[in-house]
């Protein structure tokens, strides 16, 4: 884990993970550690951990769909001011087609399609950006505190 910025009003932690489903537990543990450090209340903390884990899962499932044995790494950066939390994801997988990112209709009960819905329910904004080299995708989630 690296602390990028640390002063009284702006904190930021970043860590990278191998892109695979077995890393999701490490992503959650990293997030919990950071939120504890940032003194985010426990109830919100677990919601945020779910949103982060769903976004990381989407990288594994979609951006690297055809590359289950990749050695690529994805990075998660959590930044916090006194007013807002910003969570960024960086990966080198298949470029995200924004038009295809949508959840299933919530009343059409069937397995799958809920991860993006959870992210939307928990976070205030979701933005897909092109990543600066070497990254391909950069997803940015924000939540007002």
């Amino acid at each position, binding site marked *: 884990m690296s602390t990028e910025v640390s002063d009284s009003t702006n904190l930021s932690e970043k860590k990278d993970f191998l892109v695979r*489903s*077995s890393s*999701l*537990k490490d992503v*959650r543990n990293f997030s919990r550690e950071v939120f504890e450090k940032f003194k985010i209340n426990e109830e919100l903390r*677990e919601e945020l*951990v*779910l949103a982060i*884990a*769903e976004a990381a*899962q989407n990288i*594994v*499932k979609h951006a690297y769909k055809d590359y289950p044995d990749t050695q690529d790494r994805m990075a998660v950066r959590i930044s916090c001011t006194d007013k807002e939390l910003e969570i960024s994801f960086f990966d080198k997988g298949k470029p995200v087609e924004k038009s295809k990112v949508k959840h299933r209709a*919530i*009343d059409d*009960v*069937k*397995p*799958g399609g*809920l*991860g993006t*819905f*959870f992210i939307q*329910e928990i976070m205030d904004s979701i933005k897909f950006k092109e990543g600066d080299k070497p990254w391909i995708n950069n997803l940015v989630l924000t939540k007002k505190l």
Partner: protein
Amino acid sequence: MTYKVTDEGDTSTVFLDGEIDMDKTEGAKEVIFPLIDAGKNVNLNLSSVQYMDSSGISVLIESHQKALEKGTKLVIKDVSKSVLKVIMMAKLEQILNLE
């Protein structure tokens, strides 16, 4: 995730624990689906599951639908507060059989 299964008549109770995510769902299905396929009613005890993401919720939906198809019943019992919150976020509390 670890699990334990107990049997009583035509009902099996599956006790899952730990955190159920994309990495653990195949293991959960391998325990639950054969019981439903064998015509058993299944109680799924989630009291020791502290975290479940959308992949875990998909296993609950798939198991519920499979049980309906087979004419058996899947009951989800003793759901921990954290997992119940996710079930409610997915608006499934009226769809799944929760006790």
